């Protein structure tokens, strides 16, 4: 009865119109559901709004609304002249921009800096875009060829020899220091209590040194012949090219499979020859610009890029060394890491700049910028070592065992299985260190190198532009530049992390 009645239905009263339910989308919805839905959230929203009001609004006022955009000297940026409280004084930045970018790099030579920047961008951007091909070639151009070219572009100067004479020179230096050490021991043996022992050891060392001297004699003799013959660079280049190509051919597998290695070696040497010729390195090269004239963004970028590129391999080597089973390597790595981590960067820079020259032998000098570079690379390398070690610790033992069971050697296991996974785990930490390195480069201004911040502070003292807002404008500008670079690195690392960890998503 009931069932049958409910199956037929006729509407008796029409429904009245109702208002729409609470909106949950769009801006109004967001306000209702997220920002003002509870007393705590109302409080937080108000606090947040106040925070924005007191930070964003004054910044915009300072940087844009109250800013002065054009002028020739300080007069343009003085409140009494313009009639309102002046914010940023942009014409000052405009006037000082060359100094902020190049430092005291001679004006006529600044095209060299620009060319280096262009080369860096042209080589770096394709390296960063995963879709583009030829990563191997691109990487070797950026990491091997570019630094050399950049050195001769920025610093200038030419070369007097090539591979052969460099090798011979290095071996000779090494040999001389061995013989020198032996002689020192012999001298010491005359006065020391353990004289006979020192005498034996000293003679032994001298003997080794002499043996090495005879061993490398063919090399030094060849070098002297080439140097005497004139055209030393090209003769040396030819000899080096032949020797290296033959070695590549042999290592590549000789007559059977060595042809590829031979071809790439020849191509590489042709490219090197082209660069030498193009930059006139055989005839003195570009005029030398000493590094104490470099400054501004140039120094900041040179220091940070060198630091970033060299600290990672140093860090990887130290991290692997710290986990090594060979006690000597492990102890060295631990001592090295702990030393550099225990010392502030400022101390490192001071030591490298003012103390190191006192320890080095008399005629042996290292350029001030290079000293700072080495100090920073080793310092950051120690930090990166600990980052990398964290990644290594996260790799299960089974990974190495599986690779070993397949017959992979330690080196191949490490480079193909362990490191690729370990580095992926620690990308955020690595980039974190890169970012802090980038900002820490400003510390080099303490050791008389004028990086971006150093150049900026130097420009404050120019009476032509001294106004109440000069310093604020300068620091705001430097802050923006640093932020752009650091934020760029941070975003790129997120992108890489996301891409490389594709295998962890299902």
């Amino acid at each position, binding site marked *: 009865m009931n069932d049958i009645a409910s199956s037929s239905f006729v509407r008796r009263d029409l429904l009245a119109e109702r208002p729409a339910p609470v909106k949950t989308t769009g801006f109004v919805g967001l306000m209702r559901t997220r920002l003002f839905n509870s007393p705590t959230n109302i409080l937080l929203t108000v606090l947040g709004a106040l925070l924005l009001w007191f930070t964003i609004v004054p910044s915009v006022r300072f940087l844009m609304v109250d800013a002065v955009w054009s002028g020739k000297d300080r007069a343009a940026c003085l409140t009494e002249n313009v009639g309102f409280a002046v914010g940023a004084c942009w014409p000052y930045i405009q006037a000082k921009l060359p100094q902020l970018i190049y430092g005291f790099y001679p004006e006529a030579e600044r095209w060299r800096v620009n060319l280096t920047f262009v080369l860096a961008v042209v080589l770096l951007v394709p390296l960063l875009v995963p879709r583009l091909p030829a990563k191997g070639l691109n990487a070797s151009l950026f990491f091997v060829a570019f630094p050399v070219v950049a050195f001769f572009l920025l610093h200038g100067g030419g070369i007097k020899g090539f591979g052969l004479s460099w090798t011979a020179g290095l071996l000779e230096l090494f040999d001389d220091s061995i013989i020198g050490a032996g002689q020192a021991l012999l001298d010491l043996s005359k006065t020391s209590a353990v004289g006979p022992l020192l005498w034996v050891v000293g003679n032994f060392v001298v003997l080794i040194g002499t043996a090495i001297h005879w061993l490398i004699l063919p090399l030094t003799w060849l070098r002297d012949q080439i140097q005497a013959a004139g055209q030393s660079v090209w003769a040396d280049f030819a000899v080096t090219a032949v020797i290296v190509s033959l070695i590549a051919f042999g290592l590549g597998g000789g007559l059977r499979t060595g042809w590829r290695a031979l071809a790439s070696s020849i191509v590489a040497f042709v490219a090197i020859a082209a660069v030498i010729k193009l930059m006139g390195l055989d005839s003195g090269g570009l005029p030398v610009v000493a590094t104490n004239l470099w400054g501004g963004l140039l120094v900041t970028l040179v220091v940070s890029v060198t630091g970033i590129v060299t600290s990672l391999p140093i860090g990887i080597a130290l991290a692997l060394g710290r986990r090594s089973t060979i006690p000597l390597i492990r102890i060295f790595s631990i001592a090295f890491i702990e030393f550099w981590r225990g010392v502030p960067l400022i101390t490192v820079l001071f030591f490298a700049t003012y103390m190191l020259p006192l320890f080095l032998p008399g005629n042996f000098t290292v350029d001030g910028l290079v000293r700072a570079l080495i100090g920073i690379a080793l310092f950051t390398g120690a930090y990166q070592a600990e980052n990398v070690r964290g990644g290594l610790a996260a790799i*299960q033992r*089974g*990974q190495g*065992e*599986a*690779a*070993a*069971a*397949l*017959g*992979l*050697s330690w080196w*191949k296991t490490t480079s*193909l*299985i362990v490191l*690729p*996974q370990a580095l*992926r785990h620690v990308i955020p930490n690595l980039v974190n260190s890169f970012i802090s390195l980038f900002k820490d480069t400003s510390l080099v201004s303490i050791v008389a190198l004028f990086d971006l911040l150093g150049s900026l502070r130097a420009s404050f003292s120019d009476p032509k532009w001294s106004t109440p807002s000069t310093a604020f404008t300068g620091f705001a500008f430097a802050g923006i530049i640093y932020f752009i670079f650091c934020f760029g690195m941070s975003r790129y690392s997120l992108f890489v992390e996301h891409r*490389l960890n*594709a*295998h*962890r998503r*299902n």
Partner: protein
Amino acid sequence: MSDPIVKISGLNKWYGDFHVLRDIDLDVRKGERIVICGPSGSGKSTLIRCINALEEFQEGEIVVDGIELGPNLKHVDAVRREVGMVFQSFNLFPHLTVLDNCTLAPIWVRNIPKKDAEAAAMKFLERVKIPHQANKFPGQMSGGQQQRVAIARALTMNPKVMLFDEPTSALDPEMVKEVLDTMVDLAEEGMTMLVVTHEMGFAREVANRVVFMDAGQIIEANTPNEFFAAPQHARTKLFLSQILR
């Protein structure tokens, strides 16, 4: 029959003061399938890990296909090239695709060109019945599929001997079968296999010999029929009564 392809003689191993392997003597002939069982901690894993030098040992000698592996582990690389291993926890390389997992060793150890290595790897993936998953990452597959990839990966090196360390213990029951089927196929093709497992059905069906270990020693070794029907040693009887309930 033919000469032993794996010959273990007088093998002794200590972890510090703890004597894990005691006077192990074991000959494995070509094509023979040996199942090793025993209670937890009896040294089964340690024994088969000694065969491909994942563990070092202090006394004795292991000869694999004529290559001698003494306590100084001199011919490690040569031995590992002849011996494939499958682990309980798969140990696939998570950052590489299935195909790359299978081509890595042929390319980097045997210097085989990439194209040939990939073609060969696909053949082995077909054999373990997962060719269409070649471009997936290990993390995207089931445990049973991962273990079959691990078997294929070991096979790409064309080993003469395959070691299995509890290959099915980390798997859900329905996946155990697919892995065991793969191993049975492999046995039927004549592969020499040393398998540590508690799958007694597999032992009955496939093994030529069952080796029972306890406290680092071989207690009893026999054909599966004899081993299950008439165990000799009291320890074996106890173990079987616990495991075959």
